[in-house]
């Protein structure tokens, strides 16, 4: 039975203001949450979502405004107090202990013990109870490190629930999940809703808002731009509330003379356990999407073209020449660029300046017998910073870590334009990138593909990305290529069906 949203208010935040270093980032925001309600919190990066929920979790203290929980009004929450009031946050980065069992993780910090002696049976019992009430089928004796990422997230939720959480804040919980895992998560969230737990669900993905939430609150530049019941919200309305304008649709072309010659021809490419018998071509100026769910093999296919899986079999022809790279060095030498999905771990040099981040693969071109000056990379940075609309201080020495995710991604893209790449392999290029920067990136890709005659191979698990930017799409499922559409034939429901 669903509890009406207007009843039984769990939490009311009123007129929350917060400044950092003299800049106000929340200008008096309200937020309500009822028992058994899922509130989707939408907004671009920098809109203030994280600041707002961190105030609720007690990580930040608000400059003014109050948070009312139950009967009491608080103006000075701290992490301990928030926990005691039943507020828990599930972060994107898991905070579990991979070398301990599921049961130990669920009891972490609140062990069932007698005079310091841990009772394993009670601990297991408690874990079983928490898991079964949420309908999660995981053996409590397994080591958490051996679980899949989605399962680990469910264990974290079970831990919060067994610790009597009443309000759960989920920060982009599906960012790293496959669609099967996402479905599983939604089942658990629905079970929690039945038990009266209130949830604040932060996401970038509009389709999830419709599936899981009861109400949507959109933040833009630190104010609430829209609060609406999900049933009554249209997609266009949500996007407009987030970015304050329309997303311009990008020009597609399915006329063949729009594109140049074939620059990449792949035939019968296979990689053990990941994909087999893949064949496609890529023309200059064309954006070809490889669409598939996580685990479909699309990502590994992109990596193989960049020389990351030299053991692959089949034939790749680059400008009609057979091309078999043994390492990324060979691929870069053949003017292939590569944008990895994990920006933090594989893409950016976080503690290094932006100009260096942009210029590294172009060093061989800049250098004269191994000697190099910073001048060239500073000029390159200022050039691309303007062209790609990188929002920064325009200081080549600024550390890339101080840019927002979307702007970091633009720097990493500019890296390959600067290096004159002719084929660009992009893996999930807009994962964790806010809507505004995403729009810029799509425009850039289209512009560069055409102006510089670059062929772009884009692997993605986001169908919106395909419809937004691709000229052609090869759909992959379980390592096989299952369909291909081009130009106006591409639509969301068709490719989703083909991929499942």
């Amino acid at each position, binding site marked *: 039975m669903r509890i009406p949203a207007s009843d039984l208010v769990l939490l009311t935040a009123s007129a929350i203001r917060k400044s950092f270093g003299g800049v106000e980032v929340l200008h008096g925001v309200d937020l309500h949450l009822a028992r058994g309600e899922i509130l989707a919190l939408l907004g671009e990066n920098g809109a203030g979502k994280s600041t707002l929920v961190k105030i609720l979790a007690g990580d930040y203290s608000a400059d003014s405004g109050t948070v009312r929980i139950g009967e009491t009004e608080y103006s000075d929450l701290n992490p301990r107090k928030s926990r005691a009031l039943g507020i828990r946050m599930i972060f994107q980065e898991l905070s579990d202990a991979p070398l301990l069992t599921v049961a130990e993780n669920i009891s972490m910090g609140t062990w069932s013990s007698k005079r310091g002696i841990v009772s394993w049976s009670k601990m297991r019992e408690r874990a079983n109870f928490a898991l079964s009430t949420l309908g999660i089928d995981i053996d409590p004796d397994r080591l958490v490190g051996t679980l899949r990422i989605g399962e680990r997230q469910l264990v974290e939720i079970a831990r919060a629930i067994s610790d009597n959480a009443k309000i759960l804040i989920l920060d982009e919980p599906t960012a790293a999940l496959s669609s099967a895992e996402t479905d599983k998560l939604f089942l658990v969230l629905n079970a929690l809703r039945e038990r009266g737990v209130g949830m604040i669900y932060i996401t970038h993905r509009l389709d999830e808002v419709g599936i899981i939430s009861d109400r949507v609150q959109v933040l833009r530049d630190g104010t609430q731009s829209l609060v609406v019941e999900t049933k009554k919200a249209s997609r266009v309305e949500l996007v407009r509330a987030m970015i304050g304008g329309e997303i311009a649709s990008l020009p597609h072309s399915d006329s063949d003379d729009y594109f140049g010659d074939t620059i990449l021809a792949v035939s019968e490419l296979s990689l053990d356990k990941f994909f087999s018998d893949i064949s496609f071509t890529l023309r200059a100026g064309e954006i070809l999407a490889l669409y598939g769910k996580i685990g479909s093999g699309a990502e590994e296919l992109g990596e193989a073209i960049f020389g990351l899986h030299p053991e692959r079999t089949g034939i790749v022809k680059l400008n009609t020449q057979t091309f078999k790279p043994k390492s990324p*060095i060979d691929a870069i030498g053949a003017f292939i660029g590569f944008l990895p999905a994990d920006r933090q771990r*594989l893409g950016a040099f976080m*503690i*290094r300046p932006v100009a*260096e981040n942009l210029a590294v*693969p172009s060093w061989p071109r800049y*250098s004269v017998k191994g*000697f190099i000056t910073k001048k060239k990379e500073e000029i390159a940075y200022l050039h691309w910073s303007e062209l790609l609309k990188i929002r920064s201080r325009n200081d080549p020495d600024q550390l890339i870590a101080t840019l927002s995710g979307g702007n970091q991604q633009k720097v990493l893209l500019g890296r390959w334009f600067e290096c004159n790449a002719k084929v660009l392999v992009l893996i999930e290029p807009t994962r964790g990138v806010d809507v505004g920067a995403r729009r810029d990136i799509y425009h850039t890709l289209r512009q560069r593909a055409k102006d510089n005659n670059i062929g772009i191979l884009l692997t993605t698990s986001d169908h919106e990305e395909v419809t937004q930017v691709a000229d052609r799409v090869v759909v992959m499922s379980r390592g096989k290529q299952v369909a291909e559409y081009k130009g106006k034939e591409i639509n969301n429901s068709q490719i989703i069906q083909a991929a499942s």
Partner: protein
Amino acid sequence: MKSKATQSNLKAKEKKPGRSVPELAALVLFLFALIIYFSFASEYFLGVENWINILSAVSVAGILAVPGTMLLIAAQVDLSIGSAAAFTGIIAGLFINSSGVGLGIFYAILMGVVIGLVNGIVITKIQVNSLITTLGTLAILRGLSYIVGGGQTVMVPNLSYLGLARPFLNLPLSVIIFGFICILGILIMRYTTFGRSLYVIGANPSAARLVGIRTPKVILICFVLSGVATALAGVILTSQLTAASPMAANGLELSVITAIVLGGASLNGGRGTISGTILGLLIIGVLNNGLVLLNIDTFWQQVARGTLLIIAVSFDQLRERWGVKRS
């Protein structure tokens, strides 16, 4: 989140670009404070001959600290430098006595290259962590120093003129070599793709691979440079004592790392400068020298150096924590 990013942008704006400036400024201030204090406490401190003493005392550690800084920037460490200096010193001594000075020095440097190659190949090909590898070669080379020299100090009378020579500006040869290596190091780190790629490798080795950096080759070269530096250090130590001792340079790696870390290089790689390391060396040199001039028991030098190391690493940690907040 942008809110945080804008906030840190503002913070950074107040500071001025090039975040290494404030760190080095703090070091310069600390060095000057030491100099001012010691110059009041001892009338000999500011004398030219005393400064030559200070430079001379840090020159051996300094020659090792330049490639050491390059390694630490690439998130690598060479602990074998002290033992390697002793071993190459003994090799130099034995061959100088048997085949002459030129050939002796040549064999010592060749041995330095071999030591660097062994360290570098184990680390880049077999991919054993550099701390473990060089901890192993540290023990091996110390043992070999005793074995090859028969457990005895090798007297090398022919080398005395090198140890006493002051060919330029009345500076000892060791100081001149140290200065030359410093300049070379600064130029390499600033103006070569090799030097620049060390920063990139230290900052993120996985990302470095994906932008086409030849990480194994670069690291291997770095260890070879470190090996050559140990040979130079070994020859200089031998010339200063006119004897090669198997106990020479015992624990020197710790003073070297102290100076590097004090100079602002991060233990996690990606940060550091040669000029910072030089400042770190000068601070240690001035401190040791001042304590001697004040007639403080030499045991206190060790206490001071140890304290300095902990302060240096605390600095490093605090900076890292800043870094986390900024991102």
